[in-house]
């Protein structure tokens, strides 16, 4: 690309201002000077302003007591604890909402895409309405609608809805009956994890053997059997009671026990996952429709069931197309979780914003927030790109 044109320079010399090499160097120097100049100018201004307003530019204050409460911190947190602790609580909330949101959005999105492609006209229309509704409303408005409008219809604590499970739903949140580990539960968990690892190992080894030798190695039953053996062993070792059902009960103002999802979390989770699901549905639909029709017909001709056609023929091929846009949807979801501050779910941005108001250390805190999101984004895209590369490689 960069080699020079066959020049006529042997006869008349090119003036220096048309010599590409000189222009290159000039442009390089000019751009460097400009960028660095602007940066230095900004930094000088910044130090002047910082000095004038007595701002701290170090991160030393992070160890000081934060002094503000966080609603339903995911980890043990008191206003007397340090800024670092507050920040950690926010970060865990961000990770939690993004992680669960991504899983839910993927499932809902895929189901919606399938519904959209359904041969049932009614179902397909409903899916279309769902997609168009969510795609064309700002997430912030959707959030308000879920949190202030929909949750407005949920009954107060004393008149909680009770669903089988038992699950209690009221203004204070959704209370699920949740298995909690008993004292001996640890043994069970450890053994299940070991069993899981062993069965995965067996699965890959035996399958690899089959691929090479072509002999049936029964890799699925074997690995399932191994997993079961380990789980049962754990069950008996823990005395038959690895878990205890923790059923929510009403005490004082609120329900106690069980697993509680706060309305803020639920509202954020629902709007974030539904919003992203609508986009994912379009991505998945596009991917499925891009699969060659011949593939579908061939699969049917071989006699595969509808489910097998979908899971063994269509999806693996569609995934190749789906994954890259899916990555950007996941990244969007993670970044959009920062809107949670509008409805009082305190993730990293909300905590950071309070800290800025309260402490007046705008710059370091802000840098911290930016770095957090940047590393989250980079990490997500890094991991997913590895997966993407694998899947693309396998398919070829």
């Amino acid at each position, binding site marked *: 690309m960069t080699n020079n044109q066959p020049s006529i320079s042997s006869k008349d010399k090119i003036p220096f201002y048309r010599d590409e090499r000189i222009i290159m160097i000039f442009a390089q120097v000019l751009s460097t000077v400009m960028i660095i100049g602007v940066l230095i100018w900004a930094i000088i201004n910044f130090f002047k302003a910082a000095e004038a307003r007595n701002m701290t530019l170090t991160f030393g204050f992070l160890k000081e007591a934060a002094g503000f409460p966080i609603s339903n911190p995911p980890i043990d947190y008191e206003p007397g604890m340090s800024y670092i602790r507050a920040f950690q609580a926010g970060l865990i909330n961000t990770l939690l909402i993004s992680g669960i949101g991504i899983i839910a959005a993927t499932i809902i999105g895929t189901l919606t895409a399938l519904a959209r492609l359904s041969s049932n006209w009614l179902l397909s229309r409903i899916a279309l309405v769902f997609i168009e509704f969510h795609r064309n409303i700002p997430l912030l408005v959707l959030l308000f609608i879920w949190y202030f409008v929909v949750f407005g219809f949920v009954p107060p604590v004393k008149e909680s809805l009770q669903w089988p499970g038992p699950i209690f739903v009221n*203004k204070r949140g959704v209370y699920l009956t949740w298995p909690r580990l008993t004292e001996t539960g640890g043994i069970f968990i450890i053994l299940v994890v070991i069993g899981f690892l062993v069965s995965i190992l067996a699965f890959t080894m035996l399958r690899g053997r089959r691929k090479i030798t072509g002999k049936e190695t029964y890799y699925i039953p074997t690995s399932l059997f191994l997993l079961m053996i380990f789980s049962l062993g754990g069950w008996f070792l823990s005395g038959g009671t690895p878990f205890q059902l923790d059923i929510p009960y009403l005490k004082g103002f609120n329900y106690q026990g069980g697993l509680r999802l706060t309305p803020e979390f639920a509202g954020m989770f629902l709007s974030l996952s539904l919003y992203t699901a609508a986009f994912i549905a379009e991505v998945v639909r596009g991917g499925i429709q891009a699969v060659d029709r011949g593939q579908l017909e061939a699969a049917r001709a071989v006699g595969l069931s509808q489910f097998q056609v979908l899971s063994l023929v269509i999806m693996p091929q569609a995934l190749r197309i789906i994954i890259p846009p899916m990555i950007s949807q996941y990244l969007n979801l993670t970044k959009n979780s920062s809107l949670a501050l509008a409805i009082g779910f305190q993730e990293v941005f909300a905590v950071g914003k309070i800290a800025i108001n309260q402490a007046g250390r705008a710059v370091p805190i802000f840098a911290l927030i930016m770095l957090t999101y940047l590393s989250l984004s980079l990490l997500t895209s890094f991991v997913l790109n590895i997966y993407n590369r694998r899947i693309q490689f396998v398919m070829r």
Partner: protein
Amino acid sequence: MFRKYFPVLAIFIVLALALTACGTTEQPPAGEPITVVETVIVTVEVPVEVPAEPVEAAPVAEDIFSRVLDRGKVVCGGRTDLAGFGMLDADGKNIGFDIDFCRAVAAAVFGDPDAVEVVPLTAADRGPALQTAEVDILSRNVTWTSSRDAQWGNFTNVMFYDGQGFMIRKDSGITSTDDFDGATVCVTSGTTTEQNLSDFFRQNEMEYEAVIFEETPAVYSAYEEERCDVTTSDKSQLASVRSGFADPEAHLILDITISKEPLTPAVPQGDDTWFDIVKLVSFALINAEELGVTQANVEEMKSSTNINVLRLLGEEGDWGYTDLGLTADALANAILAVGNYGEIYDRYMGPEGMSFTLPRGPNNLWSNGGLIYAPPVK
């Protein structure tokens, strides 16, 4: 090949953009104030005889005031989303208790109460806006605290005595704060309210669950939907919100007040004249109520027999207007524009108030058992 010119093109486009961006920035008038800390340094270090270096010129006093005069209007940091204090009417005009004070200042300076530009500020950027003198007055129900006084600007004169209280539902079984243990409390983030709340529960060794929102309206929506047992805020706000509930009688504002919240207009640091003017206007509004001067009777009161009324209205003696660079009838104009303190209060929060009804309580005149007191105008 063709790539090589791209950087050049790119730089040109960037440059062009940078230039347009500069073009859109407001040209700061000459002699914009630098911050106060520098003022102090300069006054201390540079002897009076030696003129300061022209480049790093120290901000001259009268900076803000002269800028206000140049501009022809007062820039007032306010809000558009708090009933009673700062809100919008159907025509999009800014109205409210805090806004009327800005209008009074504008009337005193220019004789025209409409020479005000209200900049809506969020809780997060009201401090910086005052520090950088982006606004001439911050009248956005700000609590006067020592640290804010030190950091943000100069607080003038308390216009509204408030205190943080609690609101509960009557059917919740709570009768006093003793029953609060384990309660869920809705609160705004980033304000003194949040800190007061956390201090209160810590001192009383009670547990609570905070539900924290960025925006005040969200707090009350959540409370009303029974997301919380208790909501906490300045009592005036609680009263305002309660009046809007479907059934105000079902809610109770507890008598306890857990903090002092003197809501006070503030001005940027560095201009004593401007500071004095804003303070004087608030004094005038209070004195007017004391002396019975109202929006309606300003003109006839100019021929009153009460010497104090004549002084207030600039008919006799100098209340300081020559030194401040104002006209003699500046305060009379302010009263004519928005009425006296009591009238402003009643307009929004009186029995016939536009927004809600809140008994004057501590915001009554000192002579009526309240806290509202102002130095005499003479």
